[in-house]
Structure formats: structure tokens, C-alpha cells
């Protein structure tokens, strides 16, 4: 056993260490202050500094394709990009937490502590190539999240959401682990790099491996809410406080896809047409279910939840592309790029939802947006940009995300998936337009939060600007992503 673990490994995992250490700061201060909350802004800044540090360290030390701790962690382009996206999205969500009535105020330090450790879990997840590490990362992230949701000041729905998420998440974990055990049985290892060369042979010959892979995939599908493993998503997204929903929809989804991507990068799909087919069907069904269900929603968050399901379907296209192509960089790049755009626009959309919430138990319906454009023209414009971007209308970033995704799919001959994708984006236009219609074209007095929400608005504006401007320079950005992979 070659066990030389040293400084390089520690440097590689330094983002996680830094983030963990940073997470201890607010809670320690709280303890030292005799269980008194320090000013929330201080807590937030500490958290953000931690995240920024993590991003910085990730960029500095996370070289291309280095592994750490005996191949259980890998630091490559996927890790870096996905990590950065997740950390940025988490940071954005934390800013929302700072101003949401259901999360701000008391216990903000604890909340930040949990959120940051959830982010640590994410960093583990994005760098994990060992299914064991994936599991640890997943659990670290999820368990913190369950607690975060349950800690909401809102007392009814958030509890229910947390519990639902918990039970279903645990079942999914069990399924994932069961699959891992099969893979372990079949290969003698849980390390993806360990059986990567054999994966294509095993998936054909070895039913144990095949089933194990399927079960693991099911576990991932649950996390990224692929139909029919999606059912928790709308309920939890709706019940959780808006910033947490944003956290889940952006950061959690990103890192879950990162781990999923690692599995897909074993290229086992190339050898298994059946698996390929079923994944394609899952992607298609996910897009359809997410979109048609979103059409009939009135609750803004629930609508975005369903739309998030459909976006998972789009991203699945990219994953499948990665899985079937010899050099998966294009597909993986498109997935990362899509997640980047998706995280930004979803974060923005939730920021606006945050803006609308007046109390910790306030439910925001789409019709409440009437008159919003008059009252807050800039915010309305931002929401418009987010929604159009979600719908994939050029020249927003969302369009380019879809463009790369579909290009990758077509490049791998998955034309019909791309076709389903665009058909669905037409369906999605219908419900993405609805809030715009209500905002601009219906008369009404939008009831928006009275307290100051500057940070939320700044988040929204930054997201909107990035969505519009990154669209223009998406070419170099995408190339940078693609080149850094594999």
C-alpha cells in the first residue's frame, strides 16, 4: 500500500479546511459572547470570507487532474468549476438568508455554520472520485441542509419539508449505498478511477456491476431530481425558506451533478445501449413533467421548483452526452456551463422571490407580482431577464447554456434529445412568461417587503448583469471550461 500522504494533499483540500475553519468563527464568537448573536452582517461577512477563501484556494491549488488522499479526491477542471459555481451560488444564497424573514435574526450564526459546512460537504462532493467520499460529501451536505431547513422560523411547512426531504433523502442514500456495495462486490473497489478502464467491459458482462451502477444512478437521480425520483423537489422547495431553496436549487444541484458527472465519465454508457436509452427517457420525461407541471402552478417558488426539475432534464442531456462520447469534455463543459447559467438565473429568481416575502410564513403567488414593474422597475427588469434566460431566449446566458448543451448532444448524434429539449423549452416559455405578464401587463399593487433588502437587490442586479454580459463572452468562457476538463 502506497500511502504517502503529505503536504500536497493538504494543500489540495485546503479549501475545505479553510471553509470549515471559517465556519467555526461565527459560532465560536457566539459562544464567547455568551450565546449572544453578533451582528448578522458580521456573521455573513465571515461566511462570505470563508467562501471566497475557499474559491481562491480552489483556484490556486486545484491544478489539473491532481489526486489527493490516494485517489479518493481529484482536483481537476470539473472540481474547480463546479466548486466555484457552487461556492458562489452558496454565497449568493447566504446573502438572501441574511435578509429573509424566515432565516435572519436569531440563530443566524448557527445557520451560517450549517450552511458553510454544507458547503464543505459540497467541496468534498465535487472532488470525490471514490463512491465512499461521494457518500460522505453527500451526507455532510444533506444532513446540514435538513437541519437548516428545519431551523426556519416558519414553523409548519418548513418542518414538513425538512422531514420529507430527510426521509426520502435517507432512502435514496440507502439505495445509493446498496448500489455502491454491488459495485464494490463486482470490482473490489469503490473508486471510480479504479474501475474506470474496466467499466465498459463490466457493464456488459457483469450484472452485479450493472445493477450497482443503476442503483447509484438512481441515488444521484434523486439528488438532482430526475423524474420519477423528483417528487420531493416541489414540496421541499416550496416548504423551505426561500434562501434555502435557492441554496438547494443552485449549489446543491450543481455539486450533485458534479458527482453524477464523475460517474458518467466512466464511459460505461458507451457499452450499454439499454442504460443509455433509459437515461435518455428519464431525461425526456423529466423535461416534460417539470415543464407541464410548472404551467399549472400558482406559487412562485413551486413553479421555479418544477422548472428546476425540467432543467435537470436538460442537464441530463449533457450528462448523457458526456457518457457516450469518447472525449467527454464537450458534454461535460456544456453541463458545467449550463449549471453556471442555471445557478445564476435561479439565484436571481429566488432573490426576487425573497424580495416579495413579507413575513416568515408568507406565500408568494405569481399573481402577487401584479404592479411589481411599476413599483420596482429595476427589479422587475431583473426578474424578466432571469425568466427569459431560464426560457433560453437570446442573448441571455441561458440561451448559450442551452445552445452548448444541444450542440454537444447533436455532436454526439443525440439529435432527438436535443429536439425534445427545444420542444420543452417552448412549453417552458409559457410559464416563464406568466410572471412577466403579471408584472408588466396586469394592474395591481405589488405587496413587497417593507424592510430594506439591499443585499438581495444587489444580488439580483449582479446576477442580471452577469447573465446579460456573460452571454456575449460566452465563447471564451466555454472554451476555458472545456479546456480545463479531463
Amino acid at each position, binding site marked *: 500500500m502506497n500511502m504517502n500522504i503529505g503536504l500536497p494533499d493538504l494543500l489540495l483540500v485546503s479549501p475545505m479546511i479553510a471553509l470549515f475553519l471559517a465556519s467555526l468563527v461565527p459560532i465560536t464568537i457566539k459562544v464567547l459572547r455568551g450565546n449572544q448573536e453578533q451582528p448578522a452582517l458580521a456573521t455573513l461577512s465571515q461566511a462570505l470570507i470563508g467562501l471566497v477563501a475557499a474559491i481562491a484556494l480552489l483556484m490556486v491549488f486545484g491544478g489539473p487532474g491532481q489526486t489527493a488522499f490516494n485517489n479518493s479526491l481529484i482536483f481537476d477542471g470539473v472540481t474547480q468549476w463546479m466548486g466555484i459555481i457552487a461556492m458562489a451560488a452558496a454565497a449568493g444564497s447566504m446573502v438572501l438568508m441574511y435578509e429573509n424573514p424566515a432565516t435572519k435574526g436569531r440563530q443566524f450564526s448557527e445557520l451560517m455554520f450549517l450552511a458553510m459546512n454544507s458547503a464543505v460537504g459540497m467541496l468534498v462532493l465535487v472532488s470525490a472520485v471514490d463512491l465512499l467520499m461521494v457518500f460522505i460529501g453527500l451526507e455532510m451536505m444533506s*444532513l446540514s441542509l435538513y437541519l437548516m431547513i428545519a431551523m426556519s422560523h416558519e414553523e409548519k411547512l418548513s418542518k414538513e419539508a425538512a422531514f420529507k426531504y430527510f426521509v426520502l433523502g435517507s432512502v435514496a442514500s440507502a439505495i445509493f449505498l446498496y448500489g455502491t456495495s454491488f459495485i464494490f462486490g463486482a470490482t473490489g473497489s469503490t473508486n471510480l478511477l479504479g474501475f474506470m478502464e474496466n467499466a465498459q467491459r463490466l457493464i456488459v458482462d457483469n450484472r452485479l456491476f450493472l445493477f450497482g451502477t443503476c442503483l447509484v444512478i438512481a441515488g444521484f437521480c434523486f439528488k438532482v431530481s430526475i423524474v420519477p425520483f423528483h417528487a420531493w423537489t416541489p414540496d421541499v422547495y416550496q416548504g423551505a425558506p426561500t434562501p434555502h431553496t435557492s441554496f438547494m436549487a443552485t449549489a446543491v444541484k450543481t455539486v450533485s451533478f458534479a458527482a453524477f458527472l464523475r460517474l458518467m465519465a466512466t464511459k460505461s454508457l458507451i457499452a450499454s445501449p439499454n442504460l443509455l436509452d433509459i437515461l435518455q427517457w428519464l431525461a425526456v420525461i423529466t423535461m416534460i413533467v417539470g415543464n407541464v407541471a410548472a404551467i399549472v402552478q400558482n406559487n412562485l417558488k413551486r413553479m421555479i421548483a418544477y422548472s428546476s426539475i425540467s432543467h435537470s432534464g436538460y442537464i441530463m442531456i449533457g450528462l448523457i452526452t458526456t457518457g457516450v462520447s469518447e472525449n467527454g469534455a464537450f458534454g461535460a463543459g456544456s453541463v458545467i456551463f449550463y449549471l453556471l447559467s442555471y445557478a445564476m438565473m435561479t439565484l436571481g429568481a429566488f432573490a426576487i422571490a425573497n424580495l416579495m416575502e413579507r413575513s416568515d410564513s408568507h406565500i408568494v403567488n405569481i399573481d402577487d407580482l401584479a404592479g411589481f414593474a411599476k413599483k420596482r422597475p429595476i427589479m422587475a427588469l431583473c426578474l424578466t431577464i432571469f425568466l427569459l434566460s431560464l426560457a433560453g431566449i437570446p442573448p441571455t446566458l441561458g440561451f448559450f447554456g442551452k445552445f452548448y448543451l444541444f450542440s454537444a448532444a447533436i455532436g454526439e448524434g443525440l439529435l432527438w434529445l436535443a429536439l425534445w429539449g427545444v420542444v420543452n423549452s417552448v412549453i417552458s416559455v409559457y410559464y416563464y412568461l406568466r410572471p412577466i405578464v403579471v408584472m408588466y401587463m396586469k394592474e395591481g399593487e405589488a405587496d413587497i417587503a417593507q424592510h430594506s433588502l439591499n443585499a438581495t437587490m444587489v444580488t439580483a442586479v449582479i446576477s442580471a448583469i452577469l447573465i446579460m454580459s456573460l452571454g456575449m463572452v460566452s465563447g471564451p468562457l466555454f472554451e476555458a471550461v472545456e479546456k480545463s476538463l479531463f
Partner: protein
Amino acid sequence: MTADAFIFWFLSLITLGSALSVMLLANPVYSALSLVMTMVGISALFVTLGAYFIAGVQLIVYAGAVMVLFVMVLMLFDLRAELQAFSRGQISGALKLATVGALAGLIGGALLLSAGNVAEPSMAEAAKLPPDASKALGIVLFTRHIFGFEALGVLLLVIAIGTVALARAKGGTHAKH
């Protein structure tokens, strides 16, 4: 029938039986006790498989710690046997059973036919694997899986603080009405 086989069948019977009672018994306290029984059974099975350390941990962590938690919570709630242990809805019930049946059939079938699918015993490692593998386990755990181990530590810390925080939260376990 060898002793091994007998022990296996005996333990499986106990384990499965108690697992079924966890699932079937209406009174949650009985369920909990059956679960303890299952844990013990599984622990014994671990022993038959040569994982002595794990068997011990299993007993301590599960039968000891986790189950105590469960029972405590049950006591806290002061629950009696439920009138309806199972969800209503015959169609959904049947569907659920069918689902589980189908899943069991698929996985069980795959496992039964999996004889040739298991990884070749790794000669190098098998040679090193002593009858009591605790030491080897420790070595592997603190070398190859050191990061996971540390991460686990972090996780436990987080959970500890998190549950306490939840308990103190508005509407949490200590919240007043």
C-alpha cells in the same frame, strides 16, 4: 449440514424474523425492540463473516447508542399501539407491495445469478488479511481513508451542533407553544 451453515440459517432466521416484526408490529416500542434484535443478529452475522471489529461497533453504536435514542424518543412521545399501523389506501398499498416485490425479484434474481460477477479475490490483499482484521482495518482506515475519517469527524461535529441548534430553534424541540 455444517456448523457454519447451521449458524447462518439460524442467524438469518432471527434477523429476518425480527426485521419483519419491526416492519409489522403495530406498537412502535415493539418495533424498536425488534430492531435491536435485528441489529444483534446482523452483528452476529458480521462475526460469521470475520468482521469482528465491525460487529463490535455495530453492537455498540446501533444496539447501544442509536436504539437508546429511538426508545427515548418513543418514551418522550408516550405512544401507544397504533390502530392503523399501515397507510390506508388499498390501491396504493397494493402498488407499493408490487413495487417492492418487483424490486426484490429483480435484485434478488440478479444476486442469485451473480456468482461469476464478484471481483476476483485480490491475492495480494487477501494474503495480508489476517483472521482478525482489526489491525489491518485500522491501518487502512488511518492511511488510505484518512480524509474520509477526518471528514466524518467534521460531520459528527456539525451534526452535534446542528441538532442542538435545532433543539433551541423557534419551533424546535424545546420550543414552547
